[in-house]
Structures are given as structure tokens and as C-alpha cells.
């Protein structure tokens, strides 16, 4: 399966972005026909004074922030290990709990406590990432199985950290992270995604991480013979995912100003993996494009917001989402792609007989 998938999914090139771009185009077109004012942006007075931008476009980009951050990390793990981390939602709940726990310790929340809280939640998330990474890289366990452990018990650990409560935190700083910085009209999570994206781009620009990750993902044995420490690369990818998880957890907590271990980023692991796949990355590892995954995250959110705008009840959204996903992956399927290519050739009339022979 892995080999067949790898050979036929042309990943890594610009062509990989074809399907997600078509999907975005179709979604925009559909929305414009249905309701021309769908993408209009309004200015409304914000809660903390000043004018803020609102509208469907803003809520799509804002709402997909956690997913986009997680999808970036997930792409790296997928590329290096050829498997996915299904514990990111649970790990984000743990990170969020640690964040709140540290914030609640002193009486007054200052900038210093914020930094301390964020740092400790990063450390915890990285530790859990390293735990997953060790299982995958050192013990050679399939990533999905290894992360099933944390998936099973992660939310309970988050519950335990806060002693069986769902505490709230209220502070202007938290509000600034979760919604708007006073005086800035754009929601803060968008800037955080931007910052994480730029950071990753810089890392890829100035280190060999991309090359090493891809080579470990494509052929671990060959990478090892070329002197690449594949264990370290896999571990590193999980630790970077841990950082992404911590960031996503903090955004999620700040949005609601409370930590609910059961509902914080629920089912986000499935969406994150979906984002990676929609972005045209092979789930079998190897070459990857982070931009594809980010695009995938926004497609998922755009789909959700579109469905909400069509007055679909929130509980039924999943069913429609499933249909769109199946259509997308069928379009991207190598077999279907080949059939379509053959069909084009046939239409143009270029040796239909030989095409038939090739197919047979």
C-alpha cells in the first residue's frame, strides 16, 4: 500500500496544490453564486474599544488557526514517520490545562506569568511529543498505535492536572490572545498562525530539516547510509509537533477563557490529518508541502462555515463534510486521475487502440 501510494501520488511539486486550489475555487464560486455578500467584511465596534473587522472571511481564517498550526506539525510527522499522530487533541488539552494551572497559581496575571505559563505548557507538550517520538523512533512502533496511548488517556490527564475542575481565567492579556488586541482590527490568532508559519519557513530556509525529513520518509535505510540520524529526525518531528500542539492549546484556551478537558479541540486530530491529506501530501511519508496542509486546514474551515451559513444544523455538518472529503480524495485518486487522462487522450483521438492496450 505504502509503496503504491508513494509512486502514484506526485507529492512535493507545485502540481500537488492543484486539487486543494480547485477545491478553494469551487467553494468560493459556490458561495458567491449562493450569496454574493458571503465574503463581505464589515467593521463593528469591538468589546475592548476600537473598530474590529468581522465577516465570514475573517471567521474562516480566524477559526482555522488552531487547525492550521496543528496541520503544520502534523505534516512534518507524517513526512518523517509515514504515519500520523492521533493524540494532538488530547495533548492540546493537557497543554491547555498546564497553561491554566500555571496562570491560576499567582493572584494577578502579569506578562511574566503569561510567558512562564506558555513556556511550561510548551515544555510539557514537548515532553509528551518526545514520549510519542521515542515510541515511534526508538521502539519502531507504528505512529498511530504509539499515539493511541496518549489519545486514550490524554484528556483524563488534563482533567487530573486541574483536579477535576474546569477553571476559568479572566485577564485582558488572555482576551488579547484569544480575540483582539486593543486597537488592532484583525483577530490575534491569525497573527499567531502567521508567526508560526514564518518561523517554520525560516527553519526550512536555514537548516537541512526539510531535506533530512523527506529522505527519512522516502527511504529510511538509504537515509541512514547517507549519515542521517533517522531516529533523531523522527524524534525532532514529534517535538516540533509538540510545540505546535502547545500553541494550538493556548489559542484554544484563550478563545474561551476556560479549559474544558472534554471539549477543547475535540476531534481536531482527525481534521488535522485530513488537512494534511487534502493538501495533497502522501500519508505514507516522503515529500511534503506545508503550504498544502495550511490550505487544507482553511478548506475544512471554509466548508464548515459555508454549511453553517446554509443553516445546516451543527450536528449534521459532519455528514456533508464526509461527502465533500470523499469527492476530493476521489478526484485526487491515482486511478481516477489515470482514467481521466486516458479519457482526454481518447477524446483528442490520439491512438485510442494503443491507449486501450496500455490500460490493459
Amino acid at each position, binding site marked *: 500500500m505504502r509503496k503504491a501510494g508513494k509512486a502514484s501520488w506526485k507529492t512535493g511539486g507545485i502540481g500537488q496544490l492543484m486539487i486543494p486550489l480547485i477545491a478553494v475555487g469551487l467553494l468560493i464560486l459556490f458561495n458567491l453564486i449562493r450569496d454574493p455578500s458571503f465574503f463581505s467584511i464589515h467593521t463593528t465596534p469591538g468589546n475592548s474599544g476600537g473598530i474590529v473587522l468581522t465577516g465570514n472571511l475573517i471567521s474562516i481564517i480566524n477559526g482555522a488557526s488552531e487547525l492550521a498550526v496543528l496541520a503544520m506539525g502534523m505534516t512534518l510527522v507524517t513526512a518523517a514517520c509515514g504515519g*500520523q499522530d492521533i493524540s494532538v487533541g488530547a495533548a492540546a488539552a493537557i497543554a491547555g490545562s498546564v497553561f491554566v494551572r500555571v496562570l491560576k497559581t499567582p493572584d494577578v496575571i502579569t506578562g511574566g506569568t503569561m510567558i512562564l505559563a506558555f513556556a511550561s505548557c510548551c515544555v510539557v507538550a514537548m515532553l509528551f511529543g518526545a514520549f510519542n517520538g521515542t515510541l515511534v523512533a526508538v*521502539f519502531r512502533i*507504528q505512529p498511530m498505535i504509539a499515539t493511541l496511548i496518549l489519545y486514550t488517556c490524554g484528556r483524563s490527564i488534563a482533567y*487530573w492536572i486541574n483536579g477535576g475542575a474546569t477553571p476559568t481565567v479572566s485577564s485582558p492579556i488572555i482576551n488579547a490572545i484569544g480575540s483582539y488586541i486593543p486597537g488592532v482590527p484583525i483577530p490575534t490568532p491569525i497573527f499567531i498562525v502567521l508567526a508560526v508559519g514564518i518561523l517554520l519557513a525560516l527553519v526550512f530556509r536555514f537548516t537541512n530539516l526539510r531535506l533530512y525529513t523527506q529522505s527519512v520518509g522516502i527511504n529510511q535505510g538509504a537515509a541512514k547510509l547517507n549519515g542521517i540520524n533517522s531516529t533523531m529526525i523522527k524524534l525532532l518531528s514529534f517535538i516540533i509537533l509538540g510545540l505546535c500542539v502547545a500553541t494550538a492549546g493556548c489559542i484554544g484556551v484563550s478563545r474561551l477563557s476556560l479549559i474544558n478537558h472534554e471539549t477543547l479541540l475535540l476531534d481536531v486530530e482527525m481534521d488535522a490529518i485530513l488537512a494534511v491529506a487534502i493538501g495533497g501530501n502522501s500519508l505514507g511519508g516522503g515529500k511534503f508541502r506545508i503550504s498544502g496542509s495550511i490550505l487544507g486546514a482553511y478548506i475544512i474551515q471554509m466548508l464548515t462555515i459555508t454549511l453553517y451559513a446554509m443553516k445546516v444544523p451543527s*450536528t*449534521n455538518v459532519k*455528514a456533508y463534510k*464526509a461527502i465533500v472529503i*470523499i469527492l476530493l*480524495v476521489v478526484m485526487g485518486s491515482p486511478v481516477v486521475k489515470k482514467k481521466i487522462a486516458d479519457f482526454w487522450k481518447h477524446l483528442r483521438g490520439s491512438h485510442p487502440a494503443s491507449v486501450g492496450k496500455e490500460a490493459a
Partner: protein
Amino acid sequence: MSLNKTGKAAVRREPLTDTQLLMTITICIFFAMYAIAMLTLGGGFLRPQQVFDLLNDNAALIIVACGLTVVMIGGGIDISVGGVIGLTVMSCVMYLNNGGNIATAALMAIGIGLAFGLLHGFLVSYLEIQPFIVTLAGMFFARGATTMISVNPQKVTHEGFKALMKSKIEIPWLGYTAKNGNLIPARMEIGVIIALCCVLLIFLILKNVRHGRNLYAVGGNQQSALMLGINVKRIRFLSYVTSGLLSGIAGFVFMMHTGAGNATNAAGAEMNAIASSIIGGTLLTGGVGNAIGTFFGVLTLTTIKKIVVTSGLKDPWWQSITTGAMLCFFILLQSVVLSRRGKKRSADAAKS
């Protein structure tokens, strides 16, 4: 220690396959755990009814775990099973409450499961789409369709079905005497019989039928299987169909146990089933595993939860934390055992 001994003794006589080795470890650990629970906790664990309760509560899980074992041996994954159970239960309950009969409801359950299985199988094996994504979409669809039928929980009002739910198989000689002197026989639900039949059937198919043997070949090494002339696509297609069919049956069994349709029915059943299969010795990489092991995997997973509750760890988080810890233990154990065997094998190969 005793495990190593049995393992080594068996190796001398006749090489133990990976499947048998992992299954033996699980079964030994299950019995050891149950014995310790009987000795230290006593109480309910001393009564045979405890075992029947475990089976009654988890009949549906046993069935879907078998389905997942089949898919995982073929090197795939099916995470839609929980959603399919939810959809089956909800649609059957609504059908029965609107004046349907039981036989048609059972057929409907099987039909829904089969439909999901056929679709997954086609998309995964003939269109070569990644199984995780296909079955994830299947799960989303099933969950969404369930809430489309009804957001609110629905109870079965069909009299005949209620009677079927209440009918239990009584085994007097395994019962116990209550404080007032009455003999309370051990009770087993009909669903358990169905589940045990499924386990046995899958076990025999995987062991003796050509398609079953081919499944191991496909999961073990797809390229070699293809060169041996096995129809890889059809075998993989059939594995998803089996899993879909079994989740339909599991849905009906689940309904016989709970008697109500709910949007959150069998939430997380897919992960429990995957965990059970792994504990039972199935490898996600494919080619290793069997249904009996999975059966004991389910029992081990549910027994540990029962032990945690009985032993007084009342805080709600302990159950899943212990489950996670146990899962971690089993996964590490398998990894270590298999890699040691792998080293030994390559050493033997080097000698000869």
C-alpha cells in the same frame, strides 16, 4: 519468566508464529490479571457472573474488534465502526418504533453495515485511496446521518423487541446463592452467543479458508502476494466488506443490549476495538493476528477497567489513565518481543 519458558519450549518443538506468540502472551496476562483480581479484590470477581457481565456489556465491541482484526491483518484500518454502530442502532430503533418487525430490522442493520463496507472496500482497494481518510469520512458520514435521523435519544417501544432484549440464557450451575437464600443463576445475553459465533467463524475463516490465508499474505507483503498470483485488490476489498458487515451485526447486538438509539452511541468504539486488537496481538503493519487473540484483548481491556473501579480509585480519570498505561505496556512488550525474535532469526540465518 514463565512466559519465556513456554515460548522457548515451544520453539524447540515447532516454530511458534508471531501470531501465536503474541496471542499466548495476552492470554497468559489476562488469566494472571484475573487471578490476582480474584485473590486481592475478591467479591464480584469470585462469581462467574462477573465474566458474563464483561461479555454482556462488550458483545458489540468483541464483534467490531474481530472486524478490525481482519482489516488490520490485511494492512488497512477502519475507524468508521463506531459511527456505523451508532447509525445502525438509531435507524433500527426508529424503524421498530414506527411499526417495523424484528427480522427486517436485523436485515436492515446488516444492510447498512454491508453498504459501508462495500463503499470503503471499493474506495480503498480499487481507487487506491488511503484507508484512514476513507474510513474517517465514513465515520463522519455515519455520525452526521445519525443526528439527521434524530438528535434526541430514542428508546425502543416495540414490545417484541423488548421481550427479545429481556430474554437471557440462564446457567443455574454457575449461579450463586443470594443473602436471602435464593439461587441467582448466571445470565448471558443472546448478543454474547452472536459475538462468540462471530469470533469462532472469523478464526476458522482466517485459519482454514483460502481467502483467509491469502489475507495474511497480502498483509505480510503485498508485492510477494501479488507475485504469488493472489488477487490483492479483491482480498483487501473483502476485508473491508467483512468489517462493515460485522459492524452492522455489532450495531444490532448493541441495540439488544441498550435498547435505545443515541447520537453518542458507541463513541470511541473504533479506538477501543483497535486497542483490543493490538492487545490481542494484531500488528497494524499487517500479516499478524487472529480473532481469538482479539477476543482476549477485549476481555483484558475491559477487565482492567473493572479492576480500577472495584479497587477504589474512584476519581473519573483513573480508568482511562490505567487503560493508557496498560496499552503502553502491551505495545512496548510486543515491540521488544518481535525485535528480539527478528534479531535471533537474522542471527540464525547468518549462521546457516
